[in-house]
């Protein structure tokens, strides 16, 4: 088992440009059921041997899609998320980077009260090793196992997974929650899912400067988490007032520093990796400490 994604998942792709098609194939090769694509006005055609529909609602109706993955470029991405939610898709994974903040404010409001979970935007997606992947991560670095990974970053997650795999520690599910200021699924949501997953024994969470999601997660872990959690925060050397690549990675008004986040995580009893080269070993240490 795992969270959110398994071998029964049926995925519709929104955004069938070069990137969307490339990853449609990549996900299919990994074993994911890529059952449909959406391209308004091109319904009835096929793309990468996949039936194409005019609307997400049709993809749900005809192919039983229950996950949507979005590669739609920024101007239309927010609308694509809301269309998927409107079609009743329970899990929407938005890979698109560069969605305007005011668009995401509307999306967030639209999702209130609906049974749709959003992952991302500006994220690599989600993978349950050995079963299915929905997103752009290289599948081969993963190994099935019992550690959950949650991260605001893409390649830094690959780094963490690679280190875990090298240490012989497999992963239950890895979620890239995204580097934007407004994201659907946050640390706490993902931690809660792993906490309740009988097939996850421990969690690695990778945060970065900006906002206070890590501080809130630290408090939540202290109150609720029954499994060991190891953490890492990127951006100790980041200057204040500069956006470090990710739209959400900015220290503003003295808030959102790596030091504050690390202090909060350590105060909550979580081991924090001192260096990005020690992500794997820190997780192993957290598990040994809990044993």
């Amino acid at each position, binding site marked *: 088992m795992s969270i959110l994604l398994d071998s029964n998942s049926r995925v519709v792709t929104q955004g069938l440009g070069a*990137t969307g098609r490339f990853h449609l194939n990549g996900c299919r090769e990994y074993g994911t059921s890529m059952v449909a694509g959406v391209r308004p006005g091109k319904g009835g055609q096929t793309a990468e041997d996949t039936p194409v529909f005019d609307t997400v609602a049709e993809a749900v109706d005809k192919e039983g899609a229950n996950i949507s993955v979005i590669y739609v470029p*920024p*101007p239309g991405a927010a609308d694509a998320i809301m269309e998927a939610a409107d079609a009743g898709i329970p899990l929407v994974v938005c890979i698109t980077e*560069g*969605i*305007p*903040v*005011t668009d*995401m*404010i*509307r999306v*967030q*409001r639209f999702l209130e009260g609906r049974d749709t979970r959003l992952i991302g935007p500006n994220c*690599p997606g989600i993978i349950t090793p050995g079963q299915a992947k929905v997103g*752009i*991560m*290289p599948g081969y*670095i993963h190994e099935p196992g019992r550690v959950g990974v949650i*991260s*605001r*970053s*893409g*390649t*830094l*997650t*690959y*780094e963490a997974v*690679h280190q875990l795999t090298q240490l012989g520690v497999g992963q239950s599910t890895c979620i890239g929650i995204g*580097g934007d*200021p*407004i994201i659907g699924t946050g640390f706490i949501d993902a931690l809660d899912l792993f906490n309740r997953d009988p097939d996850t024994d421990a969690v690695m969470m*990778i945060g*970065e*400067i*900006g*906002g*206070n*999601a890590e501080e809130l997660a630290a408090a939540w872990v202290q109150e609720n988490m029954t499994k060991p959690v190891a953490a*890492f925060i*990127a*951006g*100790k*050397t*980041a*200057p204040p007032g*500069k*956006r*470090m*690549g*990710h*739209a*959400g*990675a900015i220290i503003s*008004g*003295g808030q959102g520093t*790596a030091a504050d986040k690390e202090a909060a995580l350590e105060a909550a009893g979580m081991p924090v990796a*001192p*260096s*990005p*080269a020690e992500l794997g070993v820190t997780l192993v240490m957290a598990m040994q400490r809990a044993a």
Partner: protein
Amino acid sequence: MNVHEYQGKELLARYGVAVPTGKVAGSAQEAREAATALGSEVLVVKAQIHAGGRGAGAVVDNAEEAGRLFADHLEKEGLPAHDLSGGVRLVRSADEAADAAEAMLGKLLVTRQTGAGGRRVSRVLVEEGCDIARELYMSLLLDRATGRPVMMASTEGGMEIEKVAEETPGRIMRQEIDPAVGLIDGQARKVAFWLGIPAEGVAEAVVFMKSLYAAWLELDATMVEINPLVQTGAGTLLALDAKVSFDDNALFRQPDIAGLRDDAEEDPKETWAGKYDLSYIALDGNIGCMVNGAGLAMATMDIIQAAGGRPANFCDVGGGATAERVAEAFKIILSDENVEAVFINIFGGIMKCDVLAQGVVDAARDVEITVPLVVRLEGTNVDQGKAIIGESGLNIIGAEDMADGAAKAVQAAEQRA
């Protein structure tokens, strides 16, 4: 993206936000004409740079002086005040306005927020003075935790709001805004009464706040900060200063705002990187780095520091970088004369190691590489990538992992120094 005060005020005024009447000037003569046209008895001449603390800053002739003032008087709290004139000057005639402009234009203005280098003043804003009864504070920004806009107001205008939040948090009010309906009159009235606006001025204050929200939303601003927000003797609100930042991700649909970018305010290397869709931020260290992915790029800076070096830059070449973009990133990094070694740290996912390697090899043909180059490659097509570098004949130090690469880069820089 940031804009100058005069640009921010022009934009806000379009939405009905009350701002003082003013004109921007690029020369002493223009300042004189602006002052004459405004015809006000009291005028203010304000240096236009993208940094706060202008009033308490100092106008100086050269970078050395700027550095000395920054270190001796401005950098930290508790340092003695300097006795030089700052970037905001009160004048009483057109001649005085011209003199004030003359004294600032072309000079460097160094403030607590500019850093040791200060900023070149190339424009001043000449504004009519106003009758200040009270100085308040108001801003609009995103509350990341709720994903909703929030209006912040304070009775403590003219101070840094972070300081107010720390010392007297009770003097700040937060009003969350429901994006489905926007700021409602009742909420705006609540803020106005809380700020102590006299009853007869409240209706106008509501209009001011709703205009501010409309501007924030429609212009895709990330922050609008009015500090100070002035309550005039007549009881009306006026935006005496305006700091407006915009969402870079929304510039595709805000062409007017994109056109306000002032390249002189940016590091030229950052502007260069922007043209190639690269994410680059100049820092003051000696180890250049090139990485794919923002999180890994930050982590690479951190590990360089942990290894005893200092990162010269943040550079994310992105997930879908072509050999051309990689080559350009490499040139930008090498154009920084402080760089004594370069650490390339790539975890190939979508970005393939062979593409990266080809970019580096191509760039090395165009620019002479005089510093040691440490490369760590992992992930997709790693073997092909290593082969391209191995066959290139370039003098490259290979690294096993991140920690090894950082240590080797720091060591190489030290040996060179």
